């Protein structure tokens, strides 16, 4: 087991090098001069441009740029972005916000998705099941930005239940509305996945055995059906956590959340290689750890899976 975890963590090295190289190259290959873009219409003196170029190693060939980036990274020196802000400080600001948002969204989709999915599955073909299925289809079909604006308008502006935009002071309460919007689509998928899984397990032989043992219905559902039904759902949720941490550009944009998605979008637009790559590097780590956790959870849920 320990060996398995170590092996999985060692896999981070090639994944990390591969993704940063790829991202660095793509930012490098973007057309246009980032320094020129920085000044927009104004024409700065050549000496300023040259100074900036050498500060960000833009005067070096690609491999040297990438090598210097790695060297800085391993000495925990992420440098500054084009506005002369330290990148490390930016990361420390944006990641907690997105983490809060992601966790809220994850809890919403997991709790409600599983709850509705189980009830729909147990009442297969009944009114509740059909209603939930249609509703979830609607949620999947409507694009996030439509949902986002509608929720912002209804709950934020008209009803005033939550602040329509988050702004600088992001806390758990402020993030609820964007978290609901963000979690809604995956909620629909979790629901459908749980429902299918419950229906499949409901007719399993061991469930009949459990009933024949004299167990009460709630106990059969909770101890026997639910645990077996959770196996595919957990896989999906884990993969989803990685996605949520990557930041939701649309949702963060609508609700003005100062998180990863917003920052990444800006940085890509400005061609800020160092910022983009720094954010992506953290994301790679998050993905790898999230996947590892899913696999460990998987083995815990299903003893037939054993890692060594």
């Amino acid at each position: 087991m320990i060996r398995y975890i170590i092996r999985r963590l060692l896999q981070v090295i090639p994944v990390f090098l591969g993704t940063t190289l790829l991202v660095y190259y793509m930012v490098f290959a973007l057309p246009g001069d980032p320094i020129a873009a920085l000044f927009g219409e104004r024409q700065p003196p050549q000496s300023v441009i040259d100074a900036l170029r050498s500060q960000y190693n833009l005067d070096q060939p690609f491999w040297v740029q990438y090598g210097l980036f790695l060297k800085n990274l391993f000495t925990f020196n992420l440098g500054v972005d084009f506005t002369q802000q330290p990148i490390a400080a930016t990361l420390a600001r944006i990641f907690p916000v997105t983490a809060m948002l992601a966790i809220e969204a994850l809890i919403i989709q997991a709790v409600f998705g599983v709850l509705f999915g189980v009830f729909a599955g147990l009442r297969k073909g009944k009114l509740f099941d059909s209603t939930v299925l249609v509703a979830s289809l609607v949620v999947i079909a409507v694009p996030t930005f439509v949902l986002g604006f509608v929720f912002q308008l209804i709950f934020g502006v008209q009803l005033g239940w939550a602040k329509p935009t988050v702004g600088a002071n992001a806390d758990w309460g402020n993030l609820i509305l964007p978290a609901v919007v963000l979690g809604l689509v995956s909620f629909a998928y979790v629901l459908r996945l749980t429902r299918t899984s419950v229906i499949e397990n409901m007719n399993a032989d061991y469930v009949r055995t459990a009933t024949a043992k004299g167990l009460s219905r709630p106990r059969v559902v909770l101890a026997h059906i639910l645990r077996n039904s959770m196996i595919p759902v957990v896989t999906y949720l884990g993969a989803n956590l990685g996605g949520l941490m990557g930041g939701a550009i649309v949702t963060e944009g609508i609700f003005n959340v100062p998180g990863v998605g917003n920052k990444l979008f800006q940085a890509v637009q400005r061609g800020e290689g160092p910022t983009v790559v720094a954010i992506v590097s953290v994301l790679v780590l998050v993905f790898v750890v999230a996947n590892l956790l899913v696999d460990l959870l998987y083995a815990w849920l299903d003893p037939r899976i054993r890692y060594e």
Partner: protein
Amino acid sequence: MTDNSGAIPLETESDKTAPGTPVLEVRDLSVDFGVEKKWVPAAIGLNYEVRAGEVLAIVGESGSGKSASSMALLGLLPSNSRVRGSVKLSGKELIGPDATRIREVRGKDVAVIFQEPMTALNPVYTVGAQIVETLRLHNEISPDEAKKRALHMLDLVELPDPEKAFKSYPHQLSGGQRQRAMIAQSLSCDPKLLIADEPTTALDVTVQAEILDLMRHLRNKLDSAIILITHDMGVVADLADRIAVMRKGVIVETGTAQQIFSNPQHEYTQALLAAVPHLGQGADSGDVDVTAALAAATHTELESVDPDELARRERENQEALKAAAEEAAKPKGEPVLELTDVAIEYPKQGRVPAFRAVEGANLVIHPGEVLGLVGESGSGKTTIGRAAVGLLPVAAGTMRVVGQDISAAKRNGKQLHKLRRDIGMVFQDPSSSLNPRLPIGESIGEPMFLAGVAKGAELQNRIEKLLDQVELPRGYRNRYPHELSGGQKQRVGIARALSLQPKLMVADEPTSALDVSVQAKVLELFQNLQRELGFACLFVTHDLAVVDVLADRICVMQRGRIVEQGTRDQILRNPQEPYTQRLLAAVPLPDPEKQRERRELRAQLMAAGIE
């Protein structure tokens, strides 16, 4: 329906229920399933009773309602069902408005053993946890006390290491061990009635024999009433005191085991008994007295048979063996399949190392000969079948198929591609081996079309001829597989395998998914076709009785090795290897008298320490 009041008395030392008073009384029990807003009957007006210490076997083929009616006793049917009538357990009504709470009865007074030990236990909990769950549900005991009792139960069902079994997850146990664990769980609360739904169907014969022994011991020890639901007449003969024969939802005949087997009244019972393949009565060359053969080969004396009588039977057996040996010595022509020291491996996949499933196999099949390859699960019999078609690589030795050495052939290479035209294959599961989206005519014609043998009108002609050969109406060609019954589907499978007039047919358990009466018809068809067309056949099966019907020669496999091979008569009349003897002794005979002899013989073999 015959009167059951004359049931044979049993020597029981019951103090729970006086012998003679029924534990379970079923009156006018009817079960219907709602299908598309109509009630479709699954069981109609059943009447029976079971006494303490008695085994009632409910026998029937699939769709007879035997399982549905028994699940109805405990309310275990899906919600689209309707149950009417009266079921009284020690006087308490279980059905209808006056019913006691069924949940208190389940697991405590009435326990169930299900067919599939693979799936009947929850895969995510240990065996121990599941038994403890049952125990603590019905008894107010501490976890420690429950554990102690669970271990006691696991010991009672003769699991070799109860402590280890307690901590094991179901997938860590073998099929037989799982079924023992299932029985331990069912018996943990001393039920008055045990419903065993096909308890040994999914198991190998030797394991089946052990489980049947176990159930017999427990019946005597615990004095529960048992309802045994099965399609296997051999199992019935081994265990049942009384028998109810069901067909299409109705009990057509009931009686003591003796009455049913020796003097069946209803024509369906007679047909059912006639359809059961009877080990030793398969081929035309005469019946084989397997019990006598085994007794002679192992120098065993039986208490239940008079020694002179046994000696006479052994002598007859020897004479028949001699006659058969002369017949077998005739020359036969160039082999169609020849394995010399063959080893077959499942190639390694990622971190899973290669697995050698067959080692040092030698066998020969001559033209027109049927070789029965017998073994239990994991013996490597299917592996040899698959390698013969080139689906698995040969790791060592030489394999010659229809005169060509394919040991070194590339998988999916040209050589195999061509060779496969000379080999037909029939698969185990007729439902999943036919493409559900192709009409069966196209399934049958596809090999001929792909091989470029025929097309257009000529192809249609040939398809019709093949349908005639497997005795299916020509009009069926446009039907889809789901519109056919299991037996009909397997006929299609055979027609497809025959379409290129193969020299070698590989049949992998082609009848094991079918009901006995259907199996009998398919086997007869197969036999006739084989005689008529004269193809050689490698017939892979776990069922010795089926091999006996078809095979000229028999090859017995155990753990990847061929332990014994010879003509049908050599194997059945004079088995030499202990494993073959054990396998033969484990096959239950559909006749209570003969089965009693066989059981004694098996007990002696086991006692003599034959592994």
